[in-house]
């Protein structure tokens, strides 16, 4: 974990209506040893800003020298980020947390909903043709990064709630079909809590190991504040405990999560 001031190489609009951006950062140090499913805390707002909290973003992919994250503009912080131009610098803390339990010998189903696709995109970048991806969006304007999954070797299906792109319906249907069609050894899911809960329920009967990435509201991002806890099964007396998404997570085994 490092806190670095790094140069922006690219901050590119991927999808006009959905306001999805791809942000490429120049930092061999941050790229070094950074794993899919891990995340960075980026300082948003200039020196005079009213923001004290950094914003967490998953590693979308990285190479030797650069880290790429992708983000949706959803509020004031990401709005600010979207206005940053190449050459400017950002304060970036990371890599943080524990990523996906990637195993290149296992056929892995990646399930991503809206901004959750960026975290599983990281997994796709390492899995070559060993991954299939099921991506869900509200509507077609938000659809993005499909080519990137494909370029990494993943076979992709898209579903939108309003049917404006790909299939119409809920992501759980598509997950079920995919599992019926192909034998997967492992499943990684990232999306809203409700979506992950539903997907985990659909997956359960298949007995396949399923991991979810819990994107909780965070303050420190490093495990110091107990702000980002997730309720997990435990062998303590009460049978559960709160664990930190930023430190023990964000990736947890779905079977441990108390939804």
């Amino acid at each position, binding site marked *: *974990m*490092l*806190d670095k001031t790094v140069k922006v190489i690219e901050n590119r609009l991927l999808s006009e209506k959905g306001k999805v951006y791809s942000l490429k950062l120049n930092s061999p140090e941050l790229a070094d040893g950074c794993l899919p499913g891990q995340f960075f805390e980026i*300082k948003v707002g200039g020196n005079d800003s*009213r*923001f*004290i*909290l*950094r914003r967490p973003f998953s590693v979308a992919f990285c190479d030797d020298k650069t880290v790429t994250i992708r983000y949706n503009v959803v509020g004031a912080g990401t709005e600010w980020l979207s206005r940053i131009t190449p050459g400017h610098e950002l*304060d970036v*803390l990371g890599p943080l947390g524990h990523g996906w339990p990637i195993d290149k010998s296992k056929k892995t189903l990646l399930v991503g909903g809206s901004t959750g696709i960026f975290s599983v995109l990281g997994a796709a970048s390492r899995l070559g043709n060993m991954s299939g991806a099921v991506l869900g969006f509200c509507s077609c304007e938000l659809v993005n990064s499909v080519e990137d999954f494909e370029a990494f070797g993943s076979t992709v299906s898209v579903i939108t709630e309003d049917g404006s792109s790909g299939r119409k319906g809920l992501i759980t249907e598509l997950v079920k079909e995919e599992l019926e069609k192909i034998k997967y050894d492992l499943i990684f899911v990232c999306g809203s809590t409700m979506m992950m809960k539903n997907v985990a329920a659909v997956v359960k009967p298949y007995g396949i190991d399923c991991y979810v990435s819990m994107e*909780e*509201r*965070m*303050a*420190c*991002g*490093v*495990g*110091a*504040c*107990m*702000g*980002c*806890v*997730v*309720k997990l099964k435990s062998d303590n007396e*009460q049978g559960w*405990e*709160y664990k930190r998404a930023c*430190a023990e997570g964000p990736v947890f085994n779905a079977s441990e999560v108390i939804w």
Partner: protein
Amino acid sequence: MENTKKVDMSVEIAGIKLKNPVMTSSGTCGYGRDYLDIWSPAELGAIMVKAVSIEPRNGNPPPRIAEIPSGVLNSIGLQNPGVRHFIETDLPWLKSIGATVVTNVVGYTMDDYAACVELLDETDVDMIELNISCPNVAGKPIGADPEAAETLTARIRKITKKPIIVKLSPNVTSISDIALAAEAGGADAVSLINCPMGMRINIQTRRPMLANITGGMSGPAIFPLALRMVWQTAKAVKISVLGGGGIVKWEDAAEMMMAGADAVFIGAGLFYYPATPLKVIEGLEKYCLDNNLSNVSMITDSLITDR
């Protein structure tokens, strides 16, 4: 007096010498391990660890964090693994690396506090900080009631010879009255401020942003409030004053010391920049050099109020 251009950065709090006047505040730096890649607790004046209680606590349900203008709202609810766990695992490690350790203690009852301190008294923890701001102790928080604050402090005073710091709540009419009560009860220092209680609502869902509805405010938004309270308290008491609330840069720390703080603590500033404590130490040292102060403690109380 000295001829060398070196600044003595040490300060003395309740008979304990701190390397420098900069601490990280309870609840924002865990038990000292989480920021190790950025700073070691041994570099600080002291580390004020997350509250411990006699039994482990789950804390409040999430979401526990929300954003506020120039600050953070939190409702952790004092989740902690219990004092015994701390004594067995974190404390020995902290001491082994050379940290000065302040243990923040909470309880539901005065007996809880006493039980905790009895265990801590047998350890080599450096100081004990009584967190009396917790709003859940038997209706009215101890931190809002001078009598209760004095009673608790006096009881703990009998249990331990270790320095006692009483951490004051800002959610009171007169914080200096509570400070005076702590002093009367035998406290060696007061630390302030804990978080003012705030709230935020998500207008889309019409629900509070925190599961616990209300939470504690921290960060620059509370700095002027904290500074005022530190000033009032430092004027009122003779014991040491540890000042914090909204410090994110060395200039804030300098203001806090000028207002009367003997040392400062940094909480939300860590979320902003994890290296904030180091930058503050550096900045205070430079301030002393620039202003020919041989000891950093000369900043304390240097406010000029006559015009």
